[in-house]
């Protein structure tokens, strides 16, 4: 029997074909579950790898002058706190003057990027937080500096996948900050190996789009909250049919070097 299993060519081909047919005919939900389960087989390796990284990080972060570092960190921290208090007070004053309702304060969760898509034709990252930590599909991702990075697409128990800006599956509405003209951010039509380039399309053809114009999320569609910085315009041109304008946008966040991100859990 064992000889038959290992030697028979027909069995080998049959097994692969059978597996492929089963994968084709099972429903999409079952396929997604199976994918998530098989992806979960890498959790032990992720655990070992992150422990190793932490050890290396602890060993390499030993500063020559730890006291000075601590003083610097505290100074930066207190500066940021002061600035935050000042901005909050200003914001409250302006909202009161304009009779504007209070915005729901954003709540974020810090997540670590632990993996990336195996193939170069997708832009996705794997995060170390999952449904166990309150992560849900379609929650927006921002960088530590507050720039838009992407959104959550698949959520597992302990990990989740997020699609990054520039991926064909990450399209959303955005606007040019100065002129308030709306368009849609899409993946570059001509493939660009530069992770920081996306396209802003469907802009009205009678406006002026200049290099350096800032692009922010429009809040339309509900995918992302309003006014999250996305990037700045580098170049613009009229579409082939002349009906709308398109622009090349260089995004603020360096997606190739993402290590930590913030997931907006309430916004």
């Amino acid at each position, binding site marked *: 029997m064992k000889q038959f299993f290992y030697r028979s060519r027909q069995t080998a081909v049959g097994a692969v074909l059978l597996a492929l047919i089963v994968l084709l005919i099972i429903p999409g939900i079952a396929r997604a579950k199976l994918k998530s389960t098989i992806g979960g087989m890498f959790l032990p390796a992720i655990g070992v790898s992150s422990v190793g990284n932490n050890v290396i990080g602890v060993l390499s972060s030993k500063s020559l002058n730890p006291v000075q570092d601590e003083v610097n960190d505290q100074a930066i921290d207190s500066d940021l706190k002061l600035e935050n208090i000042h901005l909050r007070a200003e914001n409250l004053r302006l909202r009161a003057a304009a009779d504007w309702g209070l915005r729901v304060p954003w709540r974020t969760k810090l997540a670590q990027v632990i993996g990336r898509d195996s193939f*170069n034709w997708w832009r996705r990252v794997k995060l170390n937080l999952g449904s166990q930590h309150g992560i849900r599909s379609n929650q927006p991702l921002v960088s530590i500096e507050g720039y838009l990075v992407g959104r959550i697409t698949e959520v597992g128990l302990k990990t989740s996948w997020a699609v990054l800006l520039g991926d064909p599956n990450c399209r959303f509405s955005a606007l040019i900050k100065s002129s308030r003209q709306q368009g849609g951010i899409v993946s570059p039509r001509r493939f*660009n190996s530069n992770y920081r380039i996306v396209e802003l399309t469907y802009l009205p053809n009678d406006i002026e789009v200049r290099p350096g114009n800032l692009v922010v999320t429009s809040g339309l569609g509900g995918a992302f909250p309003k006014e999250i910085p996305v990037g700045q315009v580098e170049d613009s041109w009229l579409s082939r049919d002349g009906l709308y304008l398109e622009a090349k946008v260089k995004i603020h966040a360096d997606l190739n070097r993402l290590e930590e991100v913030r997931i907006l859990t309430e916004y």
Partner: protein
Amino acid sequence: MTFRISKMLLLLIGAYFLTFIQSYWHWPRLLLGFQPDLTPAFLVFVGMTMGAGYVSSMALATGLWLDSLSANPFGISVFPLFFVGWVVFCVREKIMTREFMAQIYLGTIASLIVFLFQLILLRMFSANPMIGWEMVFWSLLNAFFCGLFVPLFTLSHKAFGRWFSHPSYEPNKWLDNNRQIVRGKD
């Protein structure tokens, strides 16, 4: 545990780490600009040195693991990997698989075939990946890496064989030539 099962386990562990490294080690992407995919080289090596069961098992495991760590439709990588492994397995008696250069050519061609097959299948499943001329350049570079890794896999396989199995008995070879009694004149 029989040698055959332990060999299968060893291969599975190898395939597991190969796919894991591809997704979780980020430095090749920073260094080269793209993530190399060495699984075609692995399947060529399996096709060259092992049986049909190994080829199908490795194609299934590697393909499913790769797709589970990607936005690809699940199972799409299995067929291209199986195809190259199977073709090499079927023609290995007719080609010079022991030659270093032949192994490099096999790995290079296999990588390009897998890349093309994957793209065709993605289009067939109406997935819309990012494709451009730079991607073609990356695939050529990746094919070169795959070519280099086939002899490397073969060498490491030989080394494992030396370390973990008994030396094979060859009736016409003496372990120590000094102990051989040479008969005949002079």
